[in-house]
């Protein structure tokens, strides 16, 4: 998949294959395709910090709790 600077094309690609676009953006190997695996990969490669993961998980928990 070719990454593009055209916003409309980027949006179309994102709608068509969101995991593919994000994997390309964050250099995630294709064999990692679960949310847990992706987070672990981002942590291991230092692309996100532990506090950012904690924050995201807490936000997810609160959103699901409200629902």
């Amino acid at each position, binding site marked *: 998949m070719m990454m593009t600077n055209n916003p409309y094309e980027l949006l179309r690609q994102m709608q068509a294959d969101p995991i593919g676009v994000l994997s390309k953006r964050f250099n995630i190997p294709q064999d990692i395709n679960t949310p*847990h695996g992706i987070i672990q990969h981002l942590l291991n490669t230092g692309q996100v910090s*532990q*506090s950012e*993961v*904690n924050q995201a*998980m*807490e936000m997810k928990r609160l959103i699901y709790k409200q629902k």
Partner: protein
Amino acid sequence: MNYPNSIYPQVYPQFPQQFPQFQQYSNQQPQQSQQTQQTQNAPLFQNALVSIPNEAEARNYPVGYGQSVSFRDENAPYLYTKTMGVSQLEPPKFEKYRIVKEEGSAPQEEASKEKAMDLSIYAEKSEIEALRGDFKALKEEVAKLKKKKREVIVDDDDE
């Protein structure tokens, strides 16, 4: 024209004395805005216990290499810590702690124990002295009997 900077104290020198409450507000305002700014800049979830619904969630929680995260179980009185090694070769270390609520503080407990002490199990000094006298008398009696017994044995041997 050159206006002096301190024109207000000259024109209204009585202002701060007459209205101390305004002076108080004018001093407080910068502190409040500074506090608000600090609160906004502080990370919300850093160094806090991560709330999780069960132990399995804590075990599967993503933790980076060389990092440690503490969890609080929402449905049970447990705390968990998950510590990852610095490399993939080291297995993650998972620990489970049970929360035990203490009833009251320790010094109060000791004080109440002292109050509730049963004094009937203790004897007075005069009673101890009397018992000591009786024990000494018995000891002397036993010594006398032993002596008599020895004399009898010696007499039997002579015969």
